């Protein structure tokens, strides 16, 4: 199946993919793309409407919004990738252990998962942030830990589905060690759901960070995170200088949109079994 044909079959997913590529490129090439320093205060240029010298306008500190949005892509990717990495790693460990070994380990881990799932997500995030204090790294940690439970469930059901396959039994019968089986057979087969989880998780992380920013627990200034730009001065100056919030808002929406579309398409394509139904009830 050529990539082009796949993209034609799923135009929304293709659009999402393009958006994400654009996001990644922006994040990587930020120092090259951004015309100004995103942090330097320049009081003479405050609150300027979009113009030739400042295509997206300036904020109340005189900082160029285009540059901040570009660097914000970097922060968003850092946040998203960091959070998802932690998340997926933890979820995979728990999910695989739980699904593969079953039995008592499964029951105990499942209790833990149920426990964590019972707490509303934002509450968990707030509690973790209150414990750790402010800071970019802490936000990443919080986002990573916060989403683990749900994804562990998903991975577990994927592992369960595969475990019953015949070739696994054969592998065991021929004396393959557990870890070999996991690495060689299980992992590749759960790569699909993991990819979906990762893609969707990236979108969730970005949104969650903006929610945290609004409540005062997000990435501390002067770091240009989209969430902080949207929820802080962006709101104060909404009537006077709407561009301060509109552009980061569009950026967030496009990014989340892209991740969701891509994730959806991936899900449809790779594993139709994941499409519907409840996930991993005991």
């Amino acid at each position, binding site marked *: 199946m050529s990539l082009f044909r796949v993209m034609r079959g799923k135009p929304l997913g293709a659009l999402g993919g393009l958006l994400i590529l654009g996001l990644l490129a922006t994040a990587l090439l930020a120092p090259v793309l951004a015309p100004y320093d995103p942090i330097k205060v320049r009081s003479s240029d405050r609150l300027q409407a979009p113009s030739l010298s400042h295509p997206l306008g300036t904020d109340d500190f005189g900082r160029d919004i285009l540059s901040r949005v570009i660097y914000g892509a970097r922060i968003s990717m850092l946040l998203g990738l960091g959070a998802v990495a932690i998340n997926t790693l933890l979820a995979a460990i728990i999910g695989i252990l739980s699904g593969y070994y079953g039995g008592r380990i499964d029951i105990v881990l499942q209790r833990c998962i149920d426990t964590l799932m019972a*707490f*509303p997500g934002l*509450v968990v995030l*707030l509690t973790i942030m209150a414990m750790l204090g402010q800071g970019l790294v802490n936000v990443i940690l919080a986002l990573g830990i916060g989403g683990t439970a749900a994804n562990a469930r998903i991975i577990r059901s994927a592992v369960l589905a595969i475990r019953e396959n015949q070739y696994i039994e054969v592998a065991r019968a021929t004396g393959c060690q557990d870890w070999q089986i996991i690495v060689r057979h299980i992992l590749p087969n759960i790569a699909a759901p993991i990819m979906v989880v990762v893609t969707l998780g990236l979108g969730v992380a970005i949104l969650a960070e903006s929610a945290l920013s609004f409540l005062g627990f997000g990435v501390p200034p002067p770091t240009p995170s989209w969430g902080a730009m949207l929820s802080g001065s962006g709101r104060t100056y909404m009537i006077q200088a709407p561009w301060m919030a509109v552009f980061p808002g569009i950026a*967030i929406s496009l990014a989340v949109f892209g991740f969701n579309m891509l994730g959806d398409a991936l899900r449809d394509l790779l594993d139709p079994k994941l499409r*519907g139904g409840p996930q991993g009830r005991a």
Partner: protein
Amino acid sequence: MSRYVLRRLVLLVPTLALVTLLVFSIIRLLPGDIVTLMMSEQGYASDKAKLEQMLGLDQPFYRQYVTYVGKVLQGDLGVSFWTKEPVLDEILRRLPVSLELAVLAMLFGLLIAVPTGIFSAVRQDTWLDYLFRTGAIGGLSVPGFWMATVVIVAASIWWQWVPPMRYTPFARDPVKNLAQLVLPAIILGLALSASVMRMTRSMVLEVLREDYVRTAWAKGLPESLVIARHVLKNAMIPVVTVMGLQLSALLGGTVIMESIFVIPGMGKFLLDAITWRDYPVIQGINLFLATGVIALNLLIDVIYGFLDPRIRFG
């Protein structure tokens, strides 16, 4: 069936125990020791040691925990460190508010999601399908507080209208009550509808391919009847499950809407408690929510079991 239910109930106990233990320990790790915080605030304890004693914080951890669990089993969730009101009372006062908001949000979510999901499925891969799916994701991509801000400011400037910033219970004045809650409910519902809509869509798609539906079509039944009779019932099953899962997210996710629209619900209550390190309140709310969610999940599983006999012995 009853064996299944019983087994689930039994598994409930260790889960709840873990929940309380988790909550109990974590908040004590929060920096900004509450004793120091309170020392500067209240006037009735003369020194730190006395305050600790009054708050029960001078006992070793396990004893505090055991005392707490004992009280919980008697229905006593403790007393707020700051307001001195019983935690359970405060929760029960705010619970109906949060529930109303959550229920309204789910209603709007369903209202938006189900029709669009069905349409999308029936007209699969047409521009309408893409439009709805894009719209659904769009609703999910814009942060809720942003939507709320835009709506409030726009409404106040263009129409001189602002949702009432004061909560009136539904029984006392349904109009004022809804006027305050309808906006946040729609915004929350929008985010919710995205996933529900896609789920509805895929379920409907699956069912549409089933033989008995094709038979009905072949027999010449009008499309709407086919959908109404056969598709809906089966498609709703997973939808119900997802809605149930979303409830917990909703109850926690209302923090932001409650802050903006001045709704005295549990979300804001919890946020304040975390900020002021009000241990009994944090514990009480978490326990309450966790228990509620677990019970709700059990209920949903039971309903699911009834609806789909294949799942019964799970």
